[in-house]
């Protein structure tokens, strides 16, 4: 087995890209990470007012969802149009605990809205365990992951893909929000759960504690970004891209693509759940309107605009779109939904790599004068 196939001499020199110094390349990603951390944790709290900082906290929650979207959709090719379900499960799990804690502090066994609307006067059995902080915290992540695992097992085993998967996810988001609206007595219905006083013993009206919530959110976002970045460069990350691009081929190599996709899907669901849980103390409400079809689409738009295959692109895109939404929807409340749809179509249709790919797309066009060898579309983090 020593002889080689060589009718065409391989051009070894052309294969290696001259990097701008090995050191620079090596520290580019950690450097950007540290810079981001300094901006989020150091600079933002100094220059932003309490009000702006709480808005940023909300945007960062959306960014945490986008980290998962980047994993599942960007790398895994799973168009997760129902992340509202997992965001909602995490959010409600946290909100239920805060409501019960508030009630206990006020010397009652029932949350305030149940005293208004409740019919039986007793706490529903499925509320009771959420009085334990550890249980509630675990549920914010485990509940969405369990639901995603169950759904993913059914869907991926049956090789449901593409648009069908996306529509199924959407339907689930719609179903959950409709169910919540119908359960006025036990979930708060359309109003959702709101008006929280404390957060694990800290008064949420105190601006200092609001800052603390912001720091927790920023830290979670940074940690998840680091973890997902590691996943992207790992062998699993390569395998996920392989499944996205040629699922059949992966199957014939002896892997079960359903299992590979399941990991990404469940991971993304867990992140959405955690984001929902952090959203509750930061914004002070979780309601069906925040987790239905429109917000579910909203969760992926940021990633699509920024660049779903690029982690940083997805995160910055999510923050930018969330910012645009709160700014523009105040000025033109009717126009935002249309603009949101337009953004989605334009990003997916004309710039699949998002803004993160804009620079390299322009560079590729400039570098290609007339003759065009098929340009390799590199998927770098």
């Amino acid at each position, binding site marked *: *087995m*020593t*002889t*080689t*196939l*060589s*009718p*065409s001499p*391989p*051009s*070894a020199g052309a*294969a*290696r*890209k001259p990097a701008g110094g090995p050191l620079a390349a090596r520290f580019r990603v950690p450097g950007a990470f540290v810079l981001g951390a300094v901006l989020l944790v150091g600079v933002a709290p100094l220059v932003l007012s309490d009000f702006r900082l709480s808005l940023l906290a909300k945007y960062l929650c959306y960014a945490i969802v986008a980290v998962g979207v980047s994993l599942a959709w960007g790398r895994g090719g799973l168009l997760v149009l129902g992340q509202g379900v997992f965001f909602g499960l995490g959010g409600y799990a946290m909100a239920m605990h805060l409501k019960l804690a508030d009630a206990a502090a006020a010397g009652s066994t029932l949350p305030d809205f149940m005293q208004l609307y409740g019919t039986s006067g007793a706490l529903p059995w499925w509320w009771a365990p959420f009085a334990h902080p550890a249980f509630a915290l675990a549920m914010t992540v485990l509940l969405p992951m369990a639901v995603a695992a169950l759904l993913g097992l059914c869907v991926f085993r049956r090789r449901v893909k593409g648009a069908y998967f996306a529509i199924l996810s959407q339907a689930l988001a719609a179903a959950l929000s409709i169910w919540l609206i119908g359960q006025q007595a036990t979930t708060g219905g359309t109003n959702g759960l709101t008006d929280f006083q404390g957060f694990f013993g800290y008064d949420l009206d105190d601006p200092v504690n609001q800052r603390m919530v912001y720091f927790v959110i920023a830290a979670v976002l940074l940690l998840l970004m680091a973890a997902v970045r*590691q*996943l992207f*460069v*790992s*062998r*699993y990350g*390569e*395998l996920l*891209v*392989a499944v996205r*691009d*040629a699922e*059949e*081929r*992966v*199957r*014939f*190599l*002896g*892997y*079960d*693509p359903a299992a590979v996709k399941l990991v990404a899907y469940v991971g993304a669901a867990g992140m959405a759940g955690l984001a929902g849980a952090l959203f509750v103390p930061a914004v002070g409400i979780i309601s069906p309107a925040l987790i239905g079809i429109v917000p579910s689409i909203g969760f992926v738009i940021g990633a699509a605009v920024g660049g779903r295959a690029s982690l940083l692109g997805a995160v910055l895109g999510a923050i930018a779109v969330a910012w645009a939404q709160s700014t523009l929807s105040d000025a033109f409340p009717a126009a935002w939904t249309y603009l949101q749809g337009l953004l989605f179509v334009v990003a997916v249709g004309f710039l699949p790599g998002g803004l993160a790919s804009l620079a390299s797309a322009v560079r590729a066009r400039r570098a290609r004068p007339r003759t065009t*060898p*098929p340009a*390799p*579309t*590199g*998927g770098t983090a």
Partner: protein
Amino acid sequence: MNGDGLTVRDLRVTFDGFTAVDGVDLDIRPGDLRFLIGPNGAGKTTLVDAITGLVPSTGSVRFEGRELRGRPVHRIARLGIGRTFQTATVFEELTVLQNLDIAAGAGRGPLTLLRRRKEVPEPVTRALETTGLTGLRDRPAGALAHGQKQWLEIGMLLVQDVRLLLLDEPVAGMSHDEREATGELLRRVSGERTVVVIEHDMDFVRSFARSVTVLHAGRVLSEGSVADVQADARVQEVYLGSAAGSGSVPGSVPDSVPGSVPGSGSVPGGVPATATATVAEGA
């Protein structure tokens, strides 16, 4: 002998009432280099699809004594059976090295998967050398030339460490030199592994086949050495006659209508069997 190699018994595949594979029996010894030939629609690709679990079938497919039917595709692959497709399917956005590394790793545990690749696994290095792709290992597979993609696919089967390779028209669209190189590669690979090749190009079959199975309308029409098969009157009728009539054309037999080669139907017996058979036997 039946316990070893690939043993297919009474295999049938039916699509909506159309029987694509109609009771095929096949025995392929370990180390063989078997070519599957036959006119378009003979059921060659469907047969490979059925063996690898892609389409449901009835009958029996045993490899190294184990029944393959009823197992999911990825389990069959893990029993040491690999295949390629008519169109080279590689992971275009990943590099050559990443493609091979994925092929090598079906047995990896979660901990290895979650870590970055620290070094190039030894089988991958060997496959890079065997396929002549060492210099291109950091190139995205999508940027490879057509022939190089086919070699990458074969390389992926090598690192996958399969004992049975099923190749669907591996030299389609290759230049003459590339065909020769691929044939030599297949010859080296067989021996320690079993290789089954679906092929239309009769020159290629004559040069490299150790044994040939002719399929026609979902059934085995003839089987044996190249010489046996070429001497078979039924084969000449449905397939080889036309190919032999245009034997001077180095390219592949037109895929669509084998019988349409001008003048082919009029020379049913004109098969130059002896000259080509010696080549095959000499291997």
